[in-house]
């Protein structure tokens, strides 16, 4: 991957993080921690992987993206706004009355949302249904879905995992955002998931690793997956940091579902803008 491309992706990720913080600060509620942990992955998917067109968000043959961990909608809204699915100013209406941007994704209110999600475990089953439909109709589209690590404590996830394998849904790619934290504490202290990779493997899936904050790692993983001719569904366990990109939020459980206050907001935006400036300077050197 070219350094220039990596730099551009990093800049976009910074902008997504700013969008997350702007939205959640404006709403004075929302889930910053898990939104920040998937920001880079969304940037990579929406820039390099998904076959989608902001002008045709309902195109039948488009790739689908299902955010099964629906509470991290602020990250999805930010990337969709930055990719012109709707106006960036909408981000400031997040969670407010009559907004397009609901607390959790609503496929009927927001352009670019392929399934309404929010109740954990459910988006993954819907992703299986969309993948199955593609197989039945001979469509070439792929279905990508991000699940939280805490989310896979839901039994429905494993019902879906069995179903996807049984029906050879090789057009389904699940990304498990392994940041190790859930609302009540560390995942391993609340209800240990054990070996996630082994679990998916034993359910018949092709399983890969990925660093959720390293675009080269993503590129390597996705190149391997997309060149791999398997008849099995694919799971990627991405190691991530909850709250990534904002020093005082990183790996802190309590940032799961609270909004920053004014001074925290100023600090967070300052950190992200500083990072953005740094990346811009680097880009100039690369050009």
């Amino acid at each position, binding site marked *: 991957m070219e350094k220039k491309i990596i730099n551009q992706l990093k800049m976009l990720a910074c902008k997504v993080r700013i969008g997350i913080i702007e939205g959640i600060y404006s709403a004075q509620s929302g889930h910053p921690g898990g939104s920040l942990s998937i920001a880079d992955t969304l940037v990579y998917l929406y820039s390099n992987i998904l076959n989608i067109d902001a002008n045709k968000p309902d195109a039948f043959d488009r790739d689908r993206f299902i955010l099964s961990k629906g509470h991290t909608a602020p990250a999805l809204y930010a990337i969709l706004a930055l990719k012109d699915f709707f106006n960036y100013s909408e981000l400031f209406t997040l969670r407010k009355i009559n907004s397009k941007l609901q607390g959790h994704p609503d496929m009927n209110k927001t352009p670019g949302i*392929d399934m309404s999600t929010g109740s954990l475990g459910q988006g993954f089953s819907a992703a*299986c249904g969309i993948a199955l439909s593609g197989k039945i109709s001979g469509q070439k589209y792929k279905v990508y879905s991000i699940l939280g690590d805490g989310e896979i404590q839901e039994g429905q996830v494993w019902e879906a995992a069995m179903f996807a394998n049984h029906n050879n849904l090789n057009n389904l790619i699940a990304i498990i955002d392994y940041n190790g934290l859930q609302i009540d504490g560390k995942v391993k202290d609340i209800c240990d998931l054990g070996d996630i990779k082994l679990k998916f493997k034993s359910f018949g899936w092709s399983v890969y690793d990925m660093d959720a904050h390293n675009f080269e790692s993503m590129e390597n993983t996705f190149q391997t997956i997309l060149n791999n001719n398997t008849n099995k569904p694919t799971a990627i366990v991405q190691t991530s940091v909850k709250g990534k990109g904002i020093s005082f939020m990183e790996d802190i459980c309590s940032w799961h579902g609270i909004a920053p206050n004014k001074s925290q907001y100023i600090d967070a935006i300052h950190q992200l803008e500083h990072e953005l400036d740094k990346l811009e300077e680097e880009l100039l050197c690369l050009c």
Partner: protein
Amino acid sequence: MSMLVKKATRDSYGESLVELGKEYNDIIVLDADLAKATKTIMFKEAFPNRFFDCGIAECNMLGVAAGLATTGKIVFASSFAMFVAGRGYEIIRNSICYPNLNVKIAASHAGISVGEDGATHQCCEDISLMRSIPNMTVLNPCDDIETKQLIKKSIEIKTPVYIRLGRLATPILNNPDYNFQIGKGVILSEGNDITIIATGLMVYESLIAENMLSKIGINARLINIHTIKPIDQKIIISAAKETSCIITVEEHSVIGGLGSAVSEVVCENSPVPVIKIGINDIFGMSGTASELLKHYGLSSENIFEVVKDSYYKYKKDLYFI
């Protein structure tokens, strides 16, 4: 009436799916390891490539149904009422009804007439659960003819529909030229003394009761409500205005079902007494269907007694005799 041909509404459902499968290439049928009981097996045999058995995993089945529907498929998802309306409630609410998707949930083995399997399988709360969800249409057909027509009509509305089906063979009481319309009740017997409003399996029992009542000079109006939601307000308000009292009859809890839906309309528009015959907030037990129906007061004899007593109690001109 003893000459009437009997058929379980789940059999009518299976036959309908096969017919509709020929007409609509986009119909996909899902089941959760009960295809032989829900009769989706008929569709499986006719269209094996459009049938998916999801195994004993109803929540995932309902989510898969939602996903399929987002791509334009017409999805029928089946299991027993207990396991879809009960276990699957939240998936139906959040993944199917909230996005308002074109999924038909056909739930068999509803009510007490499941019989020998006992309380764990006798779902008497499904109408209550399903009708409280926005965007949901709730249908409860009484016979083969009504079931087949409503399955077909349910495809025409491209939103979520819950279809309640029974295990038990039930008499075919409607005429073959009967024209079912979602949201429209049917007057089976004109009468102005008192009104019986029945749904599903209880329509036939009420018809027998109505005959018994006419023999003692009570002319009951009998209304068949196949659509619990949206409920036919007009037919209920007319009954409230024109007769002394309404008796509702359902193979369902008296909390939240037909009786509640009728009461809501009556209370707001034209208050008259509404007496509810149904399962009185208790769990069922094992037994044959007919024993259980009798035990819980869902027999024609009990309907006759309740209507007769109510008639004398609330008779409009009683005080003037």
